[in-house]
């Protein structure tokens, strides 16, 4: 298979547009934010919210 550059040449895409598409693709594939310990941030937030909910529940 030919290189990505050759593929871009074949499609007639300018270098600037290729870089723009590559930047968009890299941003979309970016890993989700993590805490210092390496735990996914979204999971940590969900745990905290769950713990808080059960604490409030106990107080009632």
């Amino acid at each position, binding site marked *: 298979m030919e290189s990505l550059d050759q593929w871009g040449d074949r499609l007639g895409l300018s270098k600037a547009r290729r870089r*723009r598409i590559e930047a968009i693709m890299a941003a979309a594939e970016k890993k989700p934010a993590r805490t210092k310990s390496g735990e996914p941030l979204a999971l940590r937030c969900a745990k905290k919210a769950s713990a808080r909910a059960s604490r409030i529940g106990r107080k009632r």
Partner: protein
Amino acid sequence: MAAKDSRAVFLNLPYDADFERLYLAYIVGLSALNLEPRTAFALPGGEQRLSRIVALLDSCAYSIHDLSRVQLDRNPPRTPRFNMPFELGMAVARAGGNRKGWFAFEASAHRVQKSLSDLNGVDVHVHGGTVRGVMSELCNAFIANGRPTVPDMLRAYRGLRRQLPGLLAEAGTRSPFGARIFDGLCYAAGTLVRQAK
């Protein structure tokens, strides 16, 4: 007649929202087979459009004609889409009635025998209306172009679906059916199939 590009494939598909998944599957599948998909998006309407389609057919070594849309649409007057069989007829005529260079794809087995009985005796590629089916049938049609695996193609397809919103924004459109976004999709598909290998 201009020389045919041995890696160019004219895609003759129904361009509507219901066909979006399979449209992306064709782009990824052909890119994985190291072939360049081409469409009639950039062509203007009217009389010139027909001569440009002929020029496009003449410049591509292969053409794919998806005959899935034979049913009536919902809007009155309810009409089937004739563009795909019409352009298939043009491709067959340009090939001098030979089977070389053009491929008919369908969603349902045996339906084409009823809808287009002139094709009886021709191998129609039945994809079942699925992404996997399209990729599998592309591998069968272009057997000489190496053998990328269908799971690799599916991985690249899932990547392209994830990338679609960003690519649409970059092209300044909401629809994936247009000349500018088509170039972007082809480039992104080429990137993803190289990563999926």
